[in-house]
């Protein structure tokens, strides 16, 4: 599994399509994105990470780099998203951060 993460609209899905040499329709079958939203609703992050790791590419938008939110629910959601990212990065063969459409490989290598 390849794990891609980065800020909002940084070109993560475009990179995924390039890596998988596929179009948007195929990407929808082989990849999953916005997993940060799934983290907030999950009661079992390791199980969620295990499930997500079955996809070829997993994509997360980074949400932990801002000011600590005042609302406890938002704080918990951000914590869950960060924790899920760590679990996904552990399971991934390749981890890359995407910034302005440019990828920086943090683990393994891109195909």
């Amino acid at each position, binding site marked *: 599994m390849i794990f891609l993460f980065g800020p909002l609209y940084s070109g993560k899905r475009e990179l995924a399509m390039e890596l998988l040499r596929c179009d948007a329709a195929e990407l929808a079958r082989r990849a999953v994105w916005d997993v940060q939203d799934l983290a907030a609703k999950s009661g079992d992050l390791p199980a969620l990470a295990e499930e997500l790791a079955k996809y070829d590419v997993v994509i997360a938008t980074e949400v932990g*780099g*801002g*000011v600590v939110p005042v609302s406890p629910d938002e704080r918990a959601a951000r914590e869950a998203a960060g924790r899920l*990212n760590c679990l996904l990065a552990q399971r991934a063969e390749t981890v890359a951060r995407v910034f302005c459409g440019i990828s920086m490989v943090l683990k393994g290598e891109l195909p």
Partner: protein
Amino acid sequence: MMTLVIGGAASGKSEYAERLVLASAYERRIYIATMEPFDGECLARIEKHRRMRAEKRFETVECYTNLASVTVPPDSVVLLECVGNLCANEMYSPHGSGDRAAETILEGAARLKDQCGDMVVVSNEVFAGGSCYEEGTMAYLRRLARVNRMLADLADNVCEVACGIPVYYKGKEPC
């Protein structure tokens, strides 16, 4: 050797910092805890970090303000966590140094660095989620950013942890 570890929420920075401490040649591990237990959420967080340090033979020193008052032995490896709390404490606590928060923290860190064998400092990345906050928050962000830059200057190694993986901007992984 001083290493500054910075990361966002739940980025894995604590786990990584602890790994650096365990890999240090110095075996006397001192943890400087900075979080004042205000409420249940703080207590839960303190408990989580306490569990992480359990059986790793850390001596815990609590320090909410005035870091320079802490003394550590020369054969120790110090884990200071985290600067974001310390900065808030210095700015808002009645015992804090207020406008001198950044300087107070830097003086304390420099003194610790001179005393101990190895030192790992954890701070927060809270600067990438917007640029328009009320003035009190902006003042805190300006101070913490200043502390981070000064600590990065003082440190031998500086990394950001993302998804549990360190990215070094200065120096290299010390072990």
